[in-house]
């Protein structure tokens, strides 16, 4: 896993590559100031850090079946002696691992 310093280096390179960047205020389109670019690097590095550390939470939320579907899986697992629901949960966790 990357450190925040490493992600900041990545972010700096990406913002450099994205230049020029613009902001719109008072109906004028102005190029970023040095302070704006510094903030963009900070924001991008923090975003990368959040995705690395916590992105699995949202990914899992979106991958899990609905409560109704999961209850249906559990019902049929009980009837048929299958493991569909446990397999589904294990697959989502495996596909979206929590960082070590």
């Amino acid at each position, binding site marked *: 896993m990357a450190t925040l310093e490493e992600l900041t280096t990545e972010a700096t390179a990406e913002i450099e590559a994205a230049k020029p*960047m613009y902001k719109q205020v008072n109906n004028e389109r102005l190029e970023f100031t040095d302070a704006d670019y510094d903030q963009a690097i900070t924001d991008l590095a923090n975003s990368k850090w959040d995705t690395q550390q916590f992105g699995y939470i949202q990914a899992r939320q979106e991958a899990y079946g609905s409560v109704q579907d999961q209850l249906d899986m559990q019902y049929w697992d009980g009837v048929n002696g299958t493991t569909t629901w446990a397999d589904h949960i294990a697959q989502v966790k495996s596909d979206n691992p929590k960082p070590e």
Partner: protein
Amino acid sequence: MAGSLIKIDEEIVASAVASVTLTGIDSTYDVYMVKVNNWKTDTNDRQCLARVTESGTPNTTANYDYAGKGLRSDTTFTNRSGTNGTEFKFEYIGTADSQAQSNLTLFLFNFNSTTEYAFITNEMSNLDYLGNAFGTQGGQVFTSTGTARDGIQFFMSSSANTSAGTFTLYGLKK
């Protein structure tokens, strides 16, 4: 009552920009309203964000708390919450679906105060980056005092551009 909603600033994005700032909040009105229509980005899967501005400069300190509910057409409704973030947070849009966009209404409270936290309510109608209909309702608080806030800056996560959108600030006549 006619004439109760006073337009103060409007920014129409015609060329891609990384941020859009609405200015003109002062003591004239107690409550302000922001309408964002047709907000689009040029990068897939990016979150819509905002910050208060003080003397025109966005406040980037870790003083933004949020709580809300994402009402989704594709799966279970999602709770959204967090404290001590560095921006107000809304929902995700992108480019995988060409119609993906966000439409947003905010009410802004206490922005001109130097002693009270600033509060916003947000209501959002989205088509997300996968083409799923998405509604969001929530409340957010900027938990810092000492300086009046005179505007609000909108931007996308991960330095993506806003490629289109009409951002309008209104005052609610006292």
